[in-house]
């Protein structure tokens, strides 16, 4: 059982942190904690696990108990015997050179004898369907497999409680549903579970689910679009002919032909590892490929000029303020456009703030802003733009993307987020081997169940119900 009484935390030299929260998670119960970005979900998760105060400096008040052990009084290893934690980024929590060793690592730390470790290892590999990949390097697994392994490595230690910090955010829908099935088995054994997650719709069907919403300011109202309208662009088409991409001896695309028109939002959906990011990289010119990618206009054919927004905004940000970041290396910046952009992105209040101190959602918007300040001629490519974002941030993002598409830009995004994808004008499903399994108007593709089966993506029940309700209306 996990119990927090009026627990709050403030990071050194920062005003933000976790406001006082009380929480009790009983055995055999799921607790879902939601809240807007930056409201302190991850901080609360770390308080419950005991990582705060053991690994973090700051001001902690209130009390947290893990199975009767007060976190501030017992060392981490004793708390970790009673509770386990799975983190957001599956790749970053892999510690060992093989899948087998990843599970063994936590068992060794329990001080178990050789036979007991062996028995638990075999059981865990079997339960989580990891036996066939036991000798593989965890860093070569897909995101879904990595998250399953992270969960297996924790559950093998047989903790009484499990804490999960946004475990679904990087997973495709099938992997997310597989993970939830594993969690249901864990809770059925009378264990406690607390999950911090934005994608709460995946948990709608879970029985005995308690929902706790942390207080936080909604930010969608920051969006201001008035004051400037973007000049409309001439029509163009992006033609990909005979696209071939090989990565490390593996064929990602073989003779792929695609055409995309300006003024559209195109969503590309597929399982982890099918080549969604590679498609964007090929369009942006970052990926070596066979075949051609050209922009065709009434005047002739051109090289594509897209701005690319990467999955991880930390790759692009380095300046001392948001303003410096957006204006970096621009010889004669259009300040009217800059003012409009900063307002449209809801970044007015952060112009002088170092971007690296912003929340993940805000950093993503800065990364989008700096790409837009370059005024790419043909449009935007966004790799998982909603990753780790709350609904308010997604609304800001979609409004801006719609403005750009209306102005004649082509906006292409890869996403696992079906709600976000359902707002696109066109939906492309990518299957294994980079094959296009469906391509068309979003509403049509969403209802093509056989296409989703071919893509090996299970449509979650909540999403299907939503579609049926829409049809009924």
């Amino acid at each position, binding site marked *: 059982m996990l119990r927090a009484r009026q627990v709050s935390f403030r990071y050194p030299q920062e005003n933000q942190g976790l406001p006082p929260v009380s929480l009790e998670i009983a055995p055999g119960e799921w607790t879902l904690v939601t809240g807007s970005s930056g409201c302190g979900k991850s901080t609360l998760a*770390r308080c419950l*696990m005991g*990582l705060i105060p*053991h*690994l973090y400096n700051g001001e902690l008040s209130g009390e947290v108990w893990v199975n009767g052990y007060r976190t501030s009084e017992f*060392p*981490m*290893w004793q708390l*970790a*015997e009673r509770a*386990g*934690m799975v*983190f957001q980024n599956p*790749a*970053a*929590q*892999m*510690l*060992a*050179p093989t899948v087998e060793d990843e599970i*063994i*690592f*936590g*068992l*060794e*730390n*329990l*001080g178990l*004898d*050789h036979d007991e*470790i*062996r028995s638990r290892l075999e059981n865990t590999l079997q339960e989580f369907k990891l036996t066939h990949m036991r000798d593989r*390097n965890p*860093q*070569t*697994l*897909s995101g879904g497999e*990595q998250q399953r392994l*992270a969960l297996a490595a*924790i559950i093998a*230690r047989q903790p009484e409680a499990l804490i999960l910090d946004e475990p679904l955010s990087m997973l495709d829908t099938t992997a997310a549903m597989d993970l939830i099935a594993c969690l249901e088995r864990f809770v059925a054994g009378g264990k406690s579970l607390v999950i911090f997650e934005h994608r709460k719709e995946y948990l709608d069907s879970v029985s005995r689910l308690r929902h706790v919403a942390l207080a936080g300011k909604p930010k969608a109202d920051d969006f201001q679009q008035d004051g400037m309208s973007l000049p409309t662009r001439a029509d163009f088409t992006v033609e990909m002919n005979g696209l071939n991409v090989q*990565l*490390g001896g*593996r064929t990602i695309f073989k003779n792929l032909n695609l055409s995309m028109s300006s003024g559209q939002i195109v969503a590309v959906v597929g399982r982890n590892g099918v080549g969604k990011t590679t498609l964007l990289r090929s369009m*942006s010119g*970052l990926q070596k490929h066979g075949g051609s990618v050209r922009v065709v206009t009434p005047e002739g054919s051109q090289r594509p000029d897209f*701005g*690319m927004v*990467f999955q*991880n905004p*930390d*790759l*692009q*940000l*380095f300046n001392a303020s948001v303003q410096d970041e957006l204006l*970096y*290396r621009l010889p004669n910046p259009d300040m009217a456009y800059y003012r409009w952009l900063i307002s449209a992105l809801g970044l007015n209040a952060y112009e002088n703030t170092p971007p*690296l101190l912003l929340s993940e959602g805000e950093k993503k918007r800065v990364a989008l802003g700096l*790409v837009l300040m*370059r005024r790419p001629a043909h449009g935007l490519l966004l790799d998982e733009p909603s990753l780790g974002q709350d609904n308010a941030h997604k609304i800001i993002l979609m409004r801006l993307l719609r403005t750009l598409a209306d102005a004649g830009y082509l906006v292409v995004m890869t996403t696992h987020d079906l709600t976000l994808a359902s707002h696109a004008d066109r939906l492309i499903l990518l299957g294994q081997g980079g094959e296009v399994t469906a391509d068309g108007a979003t509403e049509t593709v969403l209802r093509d169940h056989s296409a989703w089966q071919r893509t090996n993506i299970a449509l979650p029940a909540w999403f299907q119900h939503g579609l049926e309700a829409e049809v009924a209306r």
Partner: protein
Amino acid sequence: MRISQAGRARQLALVEDSPLCKADPRTKLFISVAISLVVMMPIERLLIFVAIYALFLLWARLLTPTVQHVWRLKWLLLLLFAFDWWLISLDHAVLICTRLILLTGVFALFFSTTTTRQLGLALEKLRVPYRYAFSLSLAFQSLGLLDDEWRAIREAQSSRGAGLDTSSFRRFVSQVGDLISLTVPAIVLTTKRAWAITEASYARGFDSPHRRSYHTLAFSRLDFVLMAGTTVIIILLYWRW
């Protein structure tokens, strides 16, 4: 970030069919230290050792990976050879380059036949505290990932027009001040990764005083033969001539 094929290629691949894979990592550490001592010998003896070492690599099926590894240093070796010959003497140039080749070969010998798990175990057996042994093996394990992250940063910066233009030497030099666009994200990502690993390991009881290792190391006949052979060769080279 998942490790890419390119990142994996930049890590030293394990030569699984090498008989040295069956040897205890402590034996390989012993051989490596012994070779590191040999490099201090005069050139005549050193060249005799190089011949013996080449035969040993041939037996261990490591000649090709070692040559490939040394080949990556060709420009450095060429520069070093030219400067030493120009500034000191041809003998000295040969000596310095041979030493560097041997030391590079030692690195290839050890890491082409030893997994990071074996490295950690060997260090533990050598009484290196577990937390340092674990950190060191994890660092070697993460080399491919760091390489991938560096490539991702370069791409991300170039796509926003902040990358280094290496097409012209003059332009490259004029932009060296802008290295900050690469170093800041690299520091941020590395720090985040290190922190994520710390959290993940503590959440699995990394600091437990009751830890018991599942894997064990044991010397075999091969290890005794290898260590005895190395010792005899070193003694002969130092005292016989």
